[in-house]
């Protein structure tokens, strides 16, 4: 039985990441996007505490490297699907920060017109078709988008993000079987953060590595440290290229850890869900700090560069937040028109 081994050990993989195949410009772009995602989520978490954001928000702080690494090789014409925890998936392909802030605030200017909140995001202009919270729900929908891409025949790819809990759903297995059997251009991305809402994977599955299911369905898979943006992007490049060339689906398992609780800004340390010492160790494996250290080690940047990026991002996010806060709520009956396209 395949196991994660040291990949699941938080005391490992804490040093600077290797940037061998990257360059200064793209590594700094990744860093900027990771700071942006973290900044967005920290602001949303704080707004939940202040009572300004009411909808359930599932934060992915600590997991930023996966969405950023995967998105480098995606195009606006690809079709990307997310989950309940999809702020990074939406932002990493260029979904509007302002549209996300307005959405979690329930404003009519939100990316989903205030009808969805944090768990229902869309940015079709950049390829992010949608995210919805039923666990595993978007995996077969993304496979349908991959079927459409194959029919289109112009090298498009569909991507489904999901967590380690979703692989316990039947639809996941139906999806892998179908995508493999029909050789669809489909990238499955499992963010294995070791937890469902509250149970460790060892309490739910006989192995802690989910890539074993790809093997069972004859799908090419890669298992990587999900807190290493370079490792994620290198594996994605290989799998996406195979999709575009008509070689069938790929499966990426990226091992990570979420710093906050299942839902909301809390860390869930006091409810018996996980051990505080693990949590502290995983913070040492911070994907952002490791990328910064990698940049310094390679001589491509110094601390003052990072401070500049962080300030820029912070100003951008503050402006987007203020704008969204000042936007109007929808008219109370607008929702009535959204069930059907035609009436």
């Amino acid at each position, binding site marked *: 039985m395949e196991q994660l081994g040291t990949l699941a050990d938080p005391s490992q993989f804490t040093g600077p990441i290797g940037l061998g195949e990257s360059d200064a410009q793209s590594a700094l772009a990744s860093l900027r996007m990771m700071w942006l995602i973290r900044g967005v989520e920290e602001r949303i978490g704080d707004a939940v505490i202040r009572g300004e954001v009411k909808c359930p928000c599932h934060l992915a702080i600590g997991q930023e490297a996966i969405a950023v690494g995967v998105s480098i090789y995606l195009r606006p014409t690809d079709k990307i699907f997310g989950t309940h925890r999809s702020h990074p998936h939406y932002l990493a392909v260029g979904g509007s920060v302002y549209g996300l802030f307005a959405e979690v605030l329930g404003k009519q200017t939100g990316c989903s017109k205030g009808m969805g909140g944090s768990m229902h995001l869309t940015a079709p202009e950049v390829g992010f078709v*949608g995210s919805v919270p039923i666990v595993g729900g978007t995996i077969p*929908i993304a496979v*349908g988008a991959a*079927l*459409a891409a194959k029919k289109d025949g112009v090298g498009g790819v569909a991507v489904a993000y999901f967590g380690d809990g979703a692989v316990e759903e039947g*639809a996941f297995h139906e*999806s892998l079987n*179908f995508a493999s059997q029909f050789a669809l251009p489909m990238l499955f991305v499992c963010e294995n953060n070791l937890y469902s809402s509250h149970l460790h994977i060892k309490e739910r599955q006989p192995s802690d590595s989910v890539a074993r299911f790809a093997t069972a369905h004859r799908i090419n898979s890669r298992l990587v440290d999900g807190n290493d943006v370079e490792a994620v992007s290198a594996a994605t490049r290989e799998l996406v290229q195979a999709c575009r060339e008509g070689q069938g689906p790929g499966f990426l398992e990226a091992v990570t850890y979420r710093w906050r609780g299942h839902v909301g800004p809390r860390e869930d340390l006091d409810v018996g869900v996980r051990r505080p010492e693990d949590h502290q160790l995983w913070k040492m494996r911070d994907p952002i700090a490791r990328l910064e250290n990698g940049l310094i080690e390679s001589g491509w940047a110094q601390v003052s560069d990072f401070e500049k990026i962080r300030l820029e991002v912070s100003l951008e996010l503050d402006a987007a937040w203020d704008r969204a806060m000042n936007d109007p709520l929808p008219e109370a009956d607008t929702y009535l028109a*959204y*069930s059907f396209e035609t009436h």
Partner: protein
Amino acid sequence: MRQIRYSEGILEAHHFLLKNYPEVFVIGQGLWSPWYVGATMKDLDVVYGRDRVMDTPVSEDGTTAIATGASLCGYRALVVHPRMDFMLLAVNSMVNQAAKWSLMLGGQAHPALTVRGIINRGGEQGAQHSQALHSWFAHIPGLRVVMPSTAADARDLLIGAVLSNDPVLYIDDRWCYDRTSVVSEPTAINLARQRPQRLSEGEDITLVGCGWTTGLLLDSLSLLEQQGVRAEVIDLRVLNPIDPTSIAESVAKTGRLLVVDGSWANCGMASEIVALASERLPLGAWKAKPQRITLPNVSAPSSRVCEEHYYPTTSKVVRAVAQLMDPELLEPTLLSGREVNFDTTSVISN
């Protein structure tokens, strides 16, 4: 003008759609096999290719969600469930996903998907090979539900369903496959404009059915005429969103309403029709209390004698109409025996 059978209507709709709309494809289990879908899809895979008429693995939920995904990306997928009972494995994909994407994303995503669920019952097939679940699905906002009873509608409502940008559940019934209609050439149909239809005119009583039970009502008309009863038959056709106008207008004229439905009574389609009519008519408009004929609130039995007892028949319709026309005439019979299984109250008290 020419005459076609219901099953031929479905086949003709497929030809019309696959020939004229390159974005249409059909996907489901058994589509290359007459064993599953009868004559309704004969040779489509040969004519249009197996890329556009896809037979699939045994994955109802996955296939329905896959069709939903393709329908969010420029295609019009028609996913076929040769038995509605097995379609229940796909309820998450239909109810949580397809029906909700438009609302959840602020009206910006429209899965132009049609799910075809075939009612296939009788013949001692038992409880998991018998269900008619249109009432369930008609409860769901965001999912259009259509149920043809005539050969013309079997064709035209399928065309309208597939050309609709909203998710649609199209329910055909194998018990209708040999019914015939006279039709002209097929044409594009706007499903949003379809309404319940009056299939016969009369001033004594309004009879409402959907799918197979509409056929049962039409088959009862000559028997009713022999008893001097002129009945107005209204075929629901579109169960969600439902337009009650023609039903209310008819009952306003006749003062009597009998709804015959091939599903269960509790929270069922027949209840909805009675409620819609009741809300719209003044108390004084009623000459008799509205009545429902439905299945007993029990799953389908297998043995043929039990099956006969289970399903509505023309004679049950005729008896119920007679009671509505003259409540005192048949009241004692109604209360007396097993044969009045159409009366839900008596079934429960048994």
